[in-house]
């Protein structure tokens, strides 16, 4: 007993055995493949089908109603396999080619497939090789080589493996090795497209003439359809170019982001790609971890969360780029949904962990120490910053940011030091040092505040503060701060040394002078607040002095000394005399002046 299938060939119905049906289908498919691309291919197929129907018709009768495998084999034997078809024209072409050089026949554009026939793992390398016409061995060597660059080769391979379809059918295998995608073929397709457009344009011209002659509603519609198609074609052409370019960009940036992300997560040194945007500070995520996470659980959770939340869009970028360039398709839409779900799971994980870490910052406490200077102190005190004490390696990066983070031998250096000068109701000069920190309880916070290492020194009337505070690694970063309040009674004066620019923060004064302009000046506490008695520090006063100094500078004769040495440029010139002096001064005690002038000071 056999199952039969009902088929319709050239409008005639036949019952055919299931096995015979699949043989016939395959046969017609192979003919379609051969003639599908040639001119009139459709017609050839229809004619052949008609002939097959005719032959089938002769085979069936009232007693034999079903087409069997034998019948189909017989018909195929009569018709012959497509490669047996003897087409004089085709022969002429190939013999011509044989005379010159063996050229690859044009088989339509090449597509990117994995090659199952010559695979080592997933056939990705051989697929890439086919696509670019390079020996797969070379591709394999390249892939193995980039495995050593942060393992990105493995990831690239896995991504390609996942998103590239395997060449299963013969036609896919042909497409895989199809017409080379090179400059020539691109130029060819562009010129074809341009030719099309030109034809369309000419056509449009004719249409326009017709349009002028007879304004018929049907014709008008036709004209606009053509116009619309014409514009559509131009847009399509432009989009194709933009798309390909965009695809390349996506792949380049996706690859860069992926490398940065992996590097940061694994703590492979300083990954400037991720964090160092603009003038921000450079440190690796791994370094931040050390000072933020109290438990390895948080660390792991955040690492995984970051990998998912940042990694998926990056991989999506890579996938998008590859899709645009090579035209590969996602194996299943379920994967897309799964990946989206995973991304949200990553967000949730980050939020939950972030919330837990946030709790460790929830309470703030402070430790206050206060003392007064002896009454014998001079009427004027000097505030400056100690810039000699710290070893060269611990150089914290200088920035206008809220704080600067830098670790050195299990210690964290923070520049969250704020100094303010206020009025004291008593007759003495008093100094208040407030150490602040956060924690998950007040005790915890107070403990951390206590543990902050901060030093200063007082010699006669000079108050020297450190520009940063130090946090021990085991205390973690919990927003530690040091606030210094220097309280002076009316009539006393404070001189803000220019190095104090590192720590002074929003000091109130009568002229509303900003911090940077307060440096290098004497400020006396008056009834109304701090006032600069010997200079006009109001906005207009500062402006007038700036103008005057500019005028002085412009009156100076300019000496064109750079002509003597054409190799030197003005921008790279360094005042070596002062630098040398500094180095000499501090090299004896093995210390180094860490801080260049914090602000430009206008005297």
């Amino acid at each position, binding site marked *: 007993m056999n199952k039969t299938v009902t088929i319709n*060939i*050239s*409008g*005639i119905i036949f019952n055919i055995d299931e096995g015979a049906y699949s043989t016939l289908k395959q046969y017609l498919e192979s*003919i379609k493949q051969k*003639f599908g691309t*040639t*001119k*009139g291919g459709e*017609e*050839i197929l229809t*004619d*052949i089908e*008609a*002939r097959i*129907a*005719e032959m089938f*018709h*002769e085979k069936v009768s009232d007693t034999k109603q079903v087409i069997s495998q034998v019948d189909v084999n017989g018909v195929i034997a*009569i*018709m*012959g*396999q*497509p490669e*047996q*078809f*003897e*087409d*004089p*024209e085709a*022969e002429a072409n190939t*013999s011509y080619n044989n005379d010159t050089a063996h050229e690859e026949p044009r088989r339509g554009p090449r597509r990117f497939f994995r090659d199952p026939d010559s695979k080592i793992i997933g056939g990705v390398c051989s697929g890439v090789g086919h696509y670019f016409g390079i020996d797969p061995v070379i591709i394999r060597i390249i892939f193995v080589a980039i495995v050593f660059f942060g393992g990105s080769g493995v990831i690239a391979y896995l991504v390609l493996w996942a998103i590239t379809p395997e060449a299963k059918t013969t036609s896919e295998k042909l497409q895989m090795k199809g017409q080379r995608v090179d400059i020539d073929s691109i130029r060819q397709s562009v010129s074809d497209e341009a030719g099309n457009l030109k034809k369309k344009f000419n056509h449009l011209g004719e249409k326009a003439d017709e349009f002028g002659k007879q304004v018929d509603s049907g014709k008008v519609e036709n004209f606009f359809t053509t116009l619309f198609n014409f514009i559509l074609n131009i847009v399509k052409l432009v989009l194709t170019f933009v798309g390909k370019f965009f695809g390349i960009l996506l792949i380049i940036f996706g690859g860069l982001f992926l490398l940065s992300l992996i590097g940061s997560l694994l703590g492979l040194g300083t990954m400037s790609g991720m964090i160092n945007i603009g003038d921000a500070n450079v440190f690796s995520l791994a370094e931040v971890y050390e000072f933020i996470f109290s438990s390895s659980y948080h660390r792991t959770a955040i690492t995984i969360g970051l990998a998912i939340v940042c990694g998926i869009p990056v991989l999506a970028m890579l996938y998008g780029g590859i899709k645009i360039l090579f035209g590969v398709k996602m194996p299943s839409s379920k994967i897309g949904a799964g990946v989206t779900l995973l991304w949200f799971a990553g967000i949730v994980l980050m939020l939950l962990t972030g919330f837990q870490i946030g709790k460790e910052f929830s309470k703030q406490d402070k430790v206050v120490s206060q003392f007064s200077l002896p009454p014998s102190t001079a009427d004027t005190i000097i505030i400056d910053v100690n810039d000699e004490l710290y070893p060269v390696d611990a150089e914290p990066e200088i920035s206008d940011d809220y704080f600067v983070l830098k670790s050195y031998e299990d210690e964290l250096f923070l520049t969250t030091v704020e100094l303010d000068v206020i009025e004291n109701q008593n007759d003495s000069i008093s100094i208040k040092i407030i150490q602040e920190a956060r924690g998950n309880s007040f005790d915890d916070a107070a403990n951390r505040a206590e543990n902050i290492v901060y030093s200063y020194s007082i010699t006669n009337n000079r108050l020297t503060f450190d520009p940063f505070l130090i946090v021990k690694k085991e205390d973690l970063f919990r927003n530690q701060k040091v606030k210094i309040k220097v309280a002076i009674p009316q009539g006393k004066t404070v001189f803000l040394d220019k190095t104090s620019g590192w720590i002074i923060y929003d000091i109130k004064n009568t002229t509303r002078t900003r911090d940077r302009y307060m440096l290098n000046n004497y400020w006396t506490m008056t009834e109304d607040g701090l006032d600069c008695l010997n200079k006009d520090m109001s906005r207009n006063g500062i402006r007038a002095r700036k103008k005057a100094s500019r005028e002085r500078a412009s009156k100076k004769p300019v000496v064109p000394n750079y002509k003597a040495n054409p190799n030197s440029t003005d921008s790279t010139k360094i005042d070596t005399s002062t630098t040398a002096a500094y180095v000499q001064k501090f090299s004896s005690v093995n210390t180094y002046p860490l801080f260049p002038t914090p602000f430009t000071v206008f005297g």
Partner: protein
Amino acid sequence: MNIENTKAQMRKGILELCILSILEKNEAYPSDILNELKDSKLIVVEGTLYPLLTRLKNDGLLTYRWEESTSGPPRKYFQLTELGKSFSNELDSSWQDLQKAVQKIRSKK
């Protein structure tokens, strides 16, 4: 050198001439043409004919009309166009030349 290949190429060269010659006598539908070609062992598989007919038709050498059939789908009856006729004549004279050329060479042996 494959003898079968050479034979096939020789056949292919004159196939167009033969088809045009058959149609010169009468209009015919593919099965008629096939029978004649098969009788003279000029064609091995029937599939060869269809692409050829389509191409000749597209080149304007042939034209066809539909005719209902009692045994199967409607048939395409092909006939020569004016262009086809002159093409056929030209091929015919070149065939005569070839034949003479071959004979001349052989008789010199």
